[in-house]
């Protein structure tokens, strides 16, 4: 603007007369216009500036307020974060992408014994030179590259010569564009936990070893205790069939009774031990209820007769002939209750009732009741009845005997058969012990039995009359009993004392049947069976035949797992000692006929 004014001034100065005024008039006019424009602009700018000033100041003021507020919030947040980090007992660190530390919390500082200033911008290698951090850094790298966290990275850090276990969660730190700009790690000192883990593992291994030892012990003890017991009972059986004087018959009766009671007691104690070891065996097979009831009757009739008690079994005709369950355990429970009934009844009767409660397509529920007219049970005694070791009172024990285990084992067994057990009683009048149990029903499908070949038919024909049997049994008494039972029928018996001899005798001999004991010295039944089958296979190959000699295991109540081992080795069936010849016959026919 001043230039324009200057120009005007200069122009005016050059005007001296009318002529020059005329010539400059246009120019001056234009310059004045120019001046006017400039003035207008300046005026506008000035006015505008005043107006705008207030608005701009207001905006700036508001903006300052906003920024201050934002700064305040950030400060508060930062303080909260700082407090949080300090309070966390875990070790927290922030690292840059080059694995140098950015920020750590107090717990971390304390752990390393180094202040943040001396940790910043250093790597773990700088801080703990003895610690090989390469595998840990690989994990960090993985997080940096993938952008995903990794949890529970375990490492052992050596600090002051002691081992410290750390478990760290490593996570990426991302910026607003979702790019990874660093790492955050949270470490927990799990040394205590690790130590516990190691101890726990040791304890577990010990416990397992203990359990294994217990199982083996039980198996051995079962066998060792029962063998002489069966020896006694078997020998008494044999003696009964020899000519005896009346006095001797009575003495034998006493021995038999004592042995029988002892056997029951031993079985109870062994069962109880198995319960403790969690190893009570229970199997599901097809059996005939009538067989079980017949056994019970046989075992108890004489005792009942001695006490002049009426002993009868009433079975519902609607119950199917064949059931699926554990006949031994069922027998055990019935015997337990019935034995008690006979024991505690001086006069009157002991009746057993079996009724059907419910029948489904695949299962049937039965109720067994043992009614007696014995001494009965007072009210307060009933709760303790089914607990182990308890008897009504010690006087009862002395009068009636027993370990007090029977009922608690029965309770467990009925539970295993999906049933309940209980008692109704009136003191002085009598008791009814009852239990329910579930059994499977006979499977509908029956395997199509292939027609028998000539060998099989021959075998069956001779089963009734004469078989050549190889008896493998190490115990002398058991040998005698078994041989007696077999020869009585007409079988020819050869005895091997152990598995090794058994294999030799088999090789040289020509047997129809092998009865194999399991636990024997030198070579046990399983091994012997394997050998025999191997020889058999070899011979079959050479002669192009398919001979298969039945091998029946003689068990003294072996455990379930052993049964599988027997079958795997090549045995065909098992029969428990002492066996009745009729049972063996039935088993053999079943085996061959299928």
């Amino acid at each position, binding site marked *: 603007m001043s230039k324009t004014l200057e120009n005007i001034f200069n122009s005016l100065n050059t005007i001296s007369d009318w002529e020059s005024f005329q010539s400059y008039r246009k120019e001056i006019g234009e310059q004045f216009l120019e001046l006017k*424009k400039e003035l*207008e*602009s300046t005026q*506008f*700018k000035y006015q*505008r500036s005043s107006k*705008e000033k*207030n*608005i*701009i*100041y*207001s*905006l*700036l003021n*508001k*903006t300052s307020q*906003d*920024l201050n507020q*934002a700064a305040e919030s950030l400060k508060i947040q930062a303080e909260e974060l700082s407090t949080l980090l300090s309070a966390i007992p875990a070790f927290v660190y922030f690292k840059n992408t080059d694995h140098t530390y950015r920020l750590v919390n107090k717990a971390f500082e304390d752990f390393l014994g180094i202040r943040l200033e001396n940790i910043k911008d250093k790597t773990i290698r700088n801080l703990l030179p003895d610690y090989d951090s390469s595998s840990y850094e690989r994990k960090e790298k993985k997080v940096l590259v993938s952008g995903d966290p990794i949890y529970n990275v375990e490492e052992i850090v050596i600090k002051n010569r002691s081992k410290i276990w750390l478990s760290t969660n490593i996570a990426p730190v991302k910026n607003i564009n979702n790019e990874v700009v660093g790492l955050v790690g949270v470490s927990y000192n799990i040394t205590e936990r690790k130590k516990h883990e190691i101890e726990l593992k040791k304890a577990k291994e010990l416990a397992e070893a203990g359990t294994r030892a217990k199982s083996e012990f039980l198996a051995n003890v079962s066998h060792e205790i029962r063998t002489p017991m069966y020896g006694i009972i078997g020998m008494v059986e044999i003696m009964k069939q020899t000519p005896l004087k009346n006095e001797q018959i009575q003495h034998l009766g006493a021995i038999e009774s004592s042995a029988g009671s002892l056997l029951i007691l031993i079985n109870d104690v062994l069962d109880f031990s198995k319960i403790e070891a969690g190893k009570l065996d229970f199997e599901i097979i097809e059996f005939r209820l009538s067989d079980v009831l017949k056994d019970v009757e046989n075992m108890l009739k004489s005792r009942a007769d001695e006490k002049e008690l009426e002993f009868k079994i009433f079975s519902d005709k609607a119950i199917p002939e064949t059931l699926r369950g554990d006949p031994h355990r069922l027998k055990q429970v019935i015997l337990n209750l019935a034995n008690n009934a006979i024991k505690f009844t001086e006069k009157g009767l002991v009746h057993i009732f079996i009724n059907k409660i419910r029948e489904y397509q695949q299962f049937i529920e039965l109720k067994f009741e043992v009614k007696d007219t014995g001494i009965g049970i007072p009210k307060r005694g009933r709760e303790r009845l089914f607990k182990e070791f308890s008897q009504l009172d010690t006087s009862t024990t002395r009068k009636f005997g027993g370990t007090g285990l029977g009922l608690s084992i029965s309770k467990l067994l009925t539970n295993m058969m999906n049933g309940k057990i209980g008692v109704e009683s009136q003191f002085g009048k009598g008791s009814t012990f009852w239990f329910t149990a579930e059994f499977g029903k006979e499977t509908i499908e029956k395997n199509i039995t292939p027609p028998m070949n000539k060998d099989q038919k021959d075998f069956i024909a001779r089963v009734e009359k004469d078989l050549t049997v190889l008896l493998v049994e190490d115990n002398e008494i058991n040998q005698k009993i078994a041989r007696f039972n077999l020869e009585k029928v007409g079988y020819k018996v050869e005895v091997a004392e152990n598995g090794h001899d058994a294999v030799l005798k088999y090789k040289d001999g020509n047997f129809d049947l092998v009865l194999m004991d399991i636990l024997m010295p030198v070579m046990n039944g399983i091994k012997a069976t394997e050998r025999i089958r191997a020889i058999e296979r070899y011979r079959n190959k050479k002669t192009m035949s398919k001979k298969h000699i039945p091998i029946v295991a003689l068990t003294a109540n072996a455990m379930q797992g052993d049964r599988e081992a027997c079958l795997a080795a090549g045995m065909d069936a098992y029969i428990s000692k002492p066996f009745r010849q009729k049972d063996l016959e039935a088993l053999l026919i079943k085996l061959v006929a299928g």
Partner: protein
Amino acid sequence: MIVKAFSASRIGTLEFKLQELINDRFKPNLAFVFASIDLGLDNVLGVLKKYPMTVFGASTCGEIFFDGKNEGIFNNSVSVSLVQMDEQYFDSILFDGEGISSFELGKKVGQWGAKKFNSPGFLVTIGGVGANGQEVVEGIQEYTGKDKLIFGGLAGDDAKFKQTYIFNNEKLISPGAVAVVFDTSKIEMKGLATSGWVGIGSDKVVTKARGNIVYTIDNEPALRVYKDHLNILDEDLPEIGVEYPLMIKKQGREILRAVNGVNLEEESLVFAGTVPEGSTVTFSTSPGFEVVEHTKADISEFFDNFEAGPLLLLFSCMARHKALGPIILDEILLAYEKAKEPICGFFTYGEIGISGETGCEFYNETFTLAVISEKE
């Protein structure tokens, strides 16, 4: 293509100029007419009706005409650009916008233009305060796609924000739109839109909005936010508010939206174009009078790269005029110097043009120039 442009401050002068210019040797078939409401739009129409030419007309917030010999910026006048060109290469239509949304209005224009030519280029002017310029553009693009050129502006009413009009030589309506579509295989269309406004103040979030109405900013009523921040009164809106548009920041781009209207009850603000809910916004202003240097640089660069054409239409935001006053003439001067053709246009309530490579959009606070010529 032959173009003759002029400015007239009275109806009489308008009549006179038309008579003078239109003769045997110059028979324009297309006229761009930007008139002040104060001049009497019916009267303007009355004069225009007499001639057999398509009219693209809008009411203004000030008229622009510069041919090197006059003030360039006028009030209460009419700026006219008469065009004689091959009638096969263009068409024009007026759409009534009553009862339909801005988007629907845009779709009508787009559908019509797309049917007319395979590669259409549009000039659009929209009447009706409260129209959403961005939705009109989006409506057109529904049919044409985003790569077609659209230039134009929102009609004005001398900063009263009461009612703005558009017209052809038969009808004068509000709301509505007048459009001219060119066959861009034969007609060259290019242009630029430049602003230079800067953001000022902290970021805020549009917390409730619908279309071009903003209800709350940072959960405060929008009207209140504006008044508090600018320290102005209800009466000052939208006139002052228009000079301090909201700058929407999105993916590194900034787009300005000027206030067109106010709802005192709802305490909401009506903008000339869509302000999406959730947008990050700040206030903005011209960074001083030097902003004109920024515009001039852009204009220079444009004409360095492109040839001028006989038809130059300028849609300049009235807020620029308010903020820059007489200084705004420098921009028009430079454009004229570069183009060496007369510039005709008006001060708008919003502009449509192209900026960079993102396709045509609706703007505020810009200097938007359309340059049209026949292809060789």
